[in-house]
């Protein structure tokens, strides 16, 4: 009997067959390589961001710097490329009516799409992290890091913290997935949903830097992209990490439920 996992597997197979999938994954792979190449060719360091001053001492600082850079537009864009397209492309291709007249119900198909979009975002993050660690280590060595509290962290422990940081980074990425899905279901237009998702992320950042709105900063989705820094304080500061979880849930759950309701209840009159 087919289940949502059937839909999930086929969504992944469809992603594998589409060029746009490789665009996002290619960007996630290329950015660390470009960063490391630039480091090799130039003498400076990005001293104005956390861990920026250590990129020449430890390769493990490089994935952390990239996490900060990527939160501005790279990961919202990479995530939106698939999340914003995954429902709207069915409208574009006219295939919604093809799959909705089979034996899977709409809820199962939606669950498959949600999981596939999240899997893609996770894969992009893992790719960027892995390439950044390997390339960074090749450039600057597998050395320990100095934490944000000034304490020394051994290389092996630092690698674990980098992995944990990427895991926590996935929390706001998952919220972006839900927002992308909502826009995809609402607009039924891939370009509008992708751009809309990116615009939402950029708007959040704009709100964060506007004078007089600094009080909203802890509750902005984009702020949660920095929650992983709690791992690099001594002792570990769990507050931003816990806040990231519930703040992101406040964005993800309504968006996810909204996308589900739109998808399940809509009339399929065109696609």
């Amino acid at each position, binding site marked *: *009997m*087919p289940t949502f996992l*059937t*839909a999930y*597997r*086929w969504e992944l*197979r*469809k992603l594998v*067959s*589409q060029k746009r999938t490789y665009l996002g994954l290619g960007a996630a792979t290329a950015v660390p390589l470009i960063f490391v190449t630039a480091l090799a060719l130039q003498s400076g360091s990005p001293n104005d961001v956390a861990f920026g001053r250590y990129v020449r001492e430890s390769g493990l600082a490089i994935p952390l710097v990239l996490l900060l850079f990527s939160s501005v537009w790279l990961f919202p864009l990479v995530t939106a490329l698939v999340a914003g397209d995954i429902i709207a492309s069915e409208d574009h*291709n*006219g*295939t919604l*009516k*093809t*799959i*909705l*007249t*089979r*034996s*899977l*119900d*709409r809820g199962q198909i939606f669950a498959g799409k949600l999981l596939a979009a999240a899997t893609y975002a996770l894969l992009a993050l893992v790719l960027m992290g892995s390439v950044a660690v390997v390339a960074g280590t090749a450039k600057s060595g597998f050395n320990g890091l100095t934490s944000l509290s000034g304490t020394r962290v051994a290389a092996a422990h630092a690698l674990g913290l980098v992995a944990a940081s990427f895991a926590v980074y996935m929390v706001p990425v998952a919220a972006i997935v839900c927002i992308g899905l909502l826009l995809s279901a609402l607009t039924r237009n891939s370009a509008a949903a992708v751009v809309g998702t990116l615009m939402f992320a950029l708007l959040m950042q704009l709100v964060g830097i506007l004078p007089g709105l600094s009080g909203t900063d802890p509750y902005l989705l984009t702020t949660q992209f920095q929650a992983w820094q709690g791992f690099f304080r001594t002792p570990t500061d769990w507050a931003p990490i816990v806040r990231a979880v519930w703040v992101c849930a406040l964005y993800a759950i309504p968006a996810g439920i909204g996308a589900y309701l739109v998808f399940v209840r809509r*009339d*399929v*009159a065109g*696609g």
Partner: protein
Amino acid sequence: MHEEPPHDRPVEARGLVKRYGRLLAVAGVDLAVDAGDVYGFLGPNGAGKTTTLRMLLGLITPTEGEARLFGRDPFRLGRRALEGVAGFVEAPQFYPYLSGRMNLELLAAFDGGGAAGRIGEVLDTVELSDRAGDRVGGYSHGMRQRLGIAAALLRRPRLLLLDEPHTGLDPAGMRDMKTLIRGLSAQGITVLLSSHQMADVEELCNRVAIINRGRILYQGDVASLTRSMGTWYRLRASDLDAAQRTAAEFELADVAREDGELRFSADEELLERFMITLGRRRIGVRALIPQHATLEQLFFELTERDGAPPEVPAAPVAEEVA
């Protein structure tokens, strides 16, 4: 009041209404398709055929009314009501970046059961095996139509809903499609065929419904429909003037001269007496050709007579439909 339908009737719809804002797309459609029917659903573009099929397949929710597929409600039961049902609305659509076979594999996975094991068989049935490995993006319209039929057959349907399956096909493609539909009917599959190709429907279907402006104008046997318009005759005779004078004496209806023939209407008894008289008067009868109305003539008669506006203010529409 309607009687309770038998639970195994493939399609039973009552008072289906679909409104989009002020546009009344379907205005109270009643349909009853029996097992074994090849049922033609005829109407001009925009008459409400596709919207009705979408409602039957559960793709859109009706504003009013109800439908049953083998006794199951597609609006409440969703996919469970589609057991034994397959088909497509408008042109069948597939993922252009996947091959024909992969598209069928996806749909078979969504169907479960033994559908995946039937892919080769259905590709053979629609004669697409040779191109099954090619991306659908490179398929012609006719190939996509055939892939649509293959996708429907994967479900081993007892009821096929086909929306304009002949559209865009070349003559050979149309012939193949008709052969395919006949073959499926011979296998016991009930077919609900939406079309505006009158000749094909007349050839393929045993029953029809004619819809215009969202309302059913006629529903019943094709033969009854054509008989309802009566029979007339074309007569070729050795002396057409004398034959026409005799016709006037017999007060035959609709008498007219056309292309060297005499055209008239008469019942069988009157026709018999007329022929005997022609013989007695030594007027040679060279040919007597009975003529029936074609479905196309009846269709235009019904739809052009129907003048209801398609857009109406929100109002209880079910009562408007007789």
